[in-house]
């Protein structure tokens, strides 16, 4: 859909970094093995702290307020809000175990690690940090710590479905990282004297990563993250305005459709001028407004032509209703065209106090009309001055190559979405300009009885009311057309389906158009390996390969875990041992790890100490 980086690019990169590389481990001389292992643990802990720190920042972005709710009041939160708070706490506890005692960190002098795991975790931290930076391009700093919306994606990113999807991603990554860290921590390889504490702390931090996953799992059990929400999160692009480009003569259907998508994106950027600016901005001119309304009308007109052409295709892809939906969409685009034309007419009798300036939005709207016209008409060099003998592009041309139809539908969908934003933005700006007394009429257009000794006088109230009404109607009609085209996009599998998903996420009452919107998101690649418990491991060490014996051993291990979970639930917190104590030996630590990895929320009390392990410290740079 877009050549810009998306959040999904960074999450996929993080996932790839967690895949274990094939090949043998680096050989180390036996006498140097303890020191090498100690260094590996130190480096992995350091790298894991970077990962956990970025994760904590994500959870702070999602719902710092939830984390401030006292533990004894959290039962009042809904399960996802509780999950957010618990994930934040769990990551804070993990960081506390990983953070070197009492020292500031000097990232600039940090030496790249030798440890393969640390190296991969560093890469994960970088991907996560880049992903968070990408999300932050959609916000501007506001008063205090507040974030102000800076793009149309901002409300999508802060929507309930997408924040849950983000929390689920963090839980998933935590689940993948935890076994890697504990494997290193509990390795039976000899360890340098004094390195045991570092090993225990790394293991304890990984245990909190399992708690992170378990907290998310509790939310998932209550209300699973939908596949659409995860797709939407991954589709969030970096917030940059595509460069201006005008169509060249003879561009292909694919190039034209992509040009429309970029042009529509540009228009969405430029039409986000805050309404308050219309009180003083020199860009608020009648020339800009007339050009905007005219371009909106032309773009709707071209979309109507294109949708009719698509409906005339011999075999439209998708369901049998696709043709009917295309014709309904064409009608909806036709209604939007009529309403935009009414808006253009309304500007015939009104002007503004400043003139002679064309706003960026008006310029981009004009470009979009040119792009859509170039695709709608057969003339490869079509412009508005091409004259009367200009046939529309034959429907066969629009579907010459596989994939053209979904792309053309996506282009129309993006164009109509931008017109909707443009109409709403124009309405708000007109309202502000009207309140600021900036809407005028030529004195000569007023009745003789009105004596104003200046060339322009204030616009009569009924004219401004009419102007506002027609722009409101243009917005409603464009939104309706966008919704109809969203249905077509779902029919033909157009890449613009994400627009409908975004609308559904930010307008919970709106009709989701994607067919699988309610489908729970699939789990991220399942990396949970079978991890033998102590009984099964002993059987394997004995050389047993009998599947019946191994299954019995695994069953005993599971029964033991359940016993521990049941005990953790019943023992009062003040009597419980801290995890650090329970995990003192590698064997008991392995058992506790297995219990935590079961994702059973009832296992979490095993780690919950009578008081929090450490007070929160200043965040270290990842």
């Amino acid at each position, binding site marked *: 859909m877009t050549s810009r980086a998306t959040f999904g690019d960074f999450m996929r990169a993080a996932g790839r970094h967690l895949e274990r590389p094939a090949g043998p481990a680096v050989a180390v001389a036996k006498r140097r093995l303890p020191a090498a292992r100690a260094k590996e643990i130190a480096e992995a802990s350091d790298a894991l702290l970077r990962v956990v720190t970025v994760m904590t920042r994500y959870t702070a972005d999602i719902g710092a307020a939830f984390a401030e709710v006292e533990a004894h009041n959290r039962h009042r939160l809904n399960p996802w809000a509780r999950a957010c708070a618990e994930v934040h706490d769990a990551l804070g506890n993990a960081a506390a175990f990983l953070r070197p005692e009492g020292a500031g960190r000097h990232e600039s002098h940090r030496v790249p690690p030798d440890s393969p795991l640390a190296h991969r975790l560093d890469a994960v931290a970088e991907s996560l940090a880049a992903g968070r930076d990408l999300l932050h391009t959609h916000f501007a700093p506001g008063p205090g710590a507040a974030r102000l919306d800076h793009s149309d994606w901002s409300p999508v990113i802060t929507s309930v479905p997408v924040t849950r999807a983000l929390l689920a991603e963090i839980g998933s990554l935590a689940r993948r990282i935890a076994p890697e860290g504990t494997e290193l921590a509990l390795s039976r390889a000899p360890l340098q004297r004094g390195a045991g504490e570092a090993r225990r702390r790394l293991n304890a931090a990984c245990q909190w990563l399992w708690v992170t996953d378990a907290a998310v799992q509790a939310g998932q059990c209550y209300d699973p993250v939908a596949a659409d929400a995860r797709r939407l999160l991954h589709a969030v692009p970096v917030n940059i305005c595509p460069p201006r480009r005008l169509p060249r003569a003879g561009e292909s259907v694919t190039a034209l459709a992509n040009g429309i998508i970029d042009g529509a994106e540009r228009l969405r950027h430029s039409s986000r001028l805050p309404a308050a600016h219309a009180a003083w901005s020199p860009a608020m001119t009648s020339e800009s407004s007339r050009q905007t309304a*005219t371009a909106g009308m032309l773009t709707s007109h071209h979309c109507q032509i294109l949708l009719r052409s698509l409906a005339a295709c011999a075999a439209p892809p998708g369901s049998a209703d696709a043709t009917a939906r295309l014709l309904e969409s064409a009608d909806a685009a036709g209604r939007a065209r009529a309403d935009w034309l009414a808006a253009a007419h309304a500007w015939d009798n009104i002007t503004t106090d400043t003139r*002679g300036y064309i706003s960026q939005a008006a310029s981009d709207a004009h470009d979009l*009309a040119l792009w859509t016209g170039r695709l709608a008409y057969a003339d490869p060099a079509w412009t508005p001055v091409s*004259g009367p003998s200009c046939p529309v592009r034959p429907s066969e041309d629009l579907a010459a190559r596989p994939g053209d139809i979904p792309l053309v539908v996506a282009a129309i969908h993006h164009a109509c979405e931008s017109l909707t934003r443009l109409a709403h933005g124009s309405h708000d700006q007109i309202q502000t300009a009207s309140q600021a007394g900036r809407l005028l009429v030529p004195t000569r257009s007023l009745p003789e009885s009105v004596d104003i000794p200046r060339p322009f006088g204030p616009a009569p109230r009924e004219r401004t009311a009419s102007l506002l009404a027609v722009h409101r109607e243009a917005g409603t009609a464009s939104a309706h057309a966008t919704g109809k085209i969203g249905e077509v996009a779902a029919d033909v599998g157009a890449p613009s389906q994400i627009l409908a998903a975004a609308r559904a996420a930010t307008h919970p009452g709106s009709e989701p158009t994607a067919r699988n919107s309610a489908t729970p998101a699939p789990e991220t690649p399942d990396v949970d390996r079978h991890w033998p418990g102590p009984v099964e491991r002993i059987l394997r060490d004995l050389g047993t390969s009998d599947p019946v014996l191994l299954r019995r051993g695994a069953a005993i291990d599971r029964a033991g875990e359940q016993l521990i979970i049941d005990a953790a639930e019943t023992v009062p917190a003040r009597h419980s041992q801290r995890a650090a104590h329970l995990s003192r030996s590698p064997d008991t630590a392995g058992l506790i790890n297995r219990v935590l990895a079961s994702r059973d929320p009832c296992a979490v009390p095993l780690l919950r100490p009578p008081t929090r392990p450490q007070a929160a410290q200043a965040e270290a740079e990842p």
Partner: protein
Amino acid sequence: MGWATGAKAHLQEAIGLAAVLSGTYEAFEGMLSVIRAHESRAEGMFAAFVMSAASAANGRDAVAGAPSLPRTGGGIQAPAERDLAAAASVKEIARDLAGLGRVLTGRLAAAASSAPHPADRAACAAAARHAGHICVLLSGAGP
């Protein structure tokens, strides 16, 4: 189209800045009415018509900002009912309006270079640009 021919003749005969300004204001206003009356049947010229309408309104507003524009007009009458009816073909209407636009451009450009008041000059120059734009849109050629 009778109205466009009459408006052209009136503009060509206008003498003095006030008469030119008054005539051009009324010509832009009349063009706007004619375009709006015929745009719905413009088909292939639909885009050119609606964009010309915006330019006509812009040109009128530019002239309206000229300090020397008389408060009352009366030189060029508003288009009659027959000018707004679908008697002529769209092509003929476009040709007539483009011709009128050409005259408008010429008179306004001349006024822009000769008007004593800077605000009149600026207003005429801006209006001339909009008139030129109408010529380009409706004839596909410059003024």
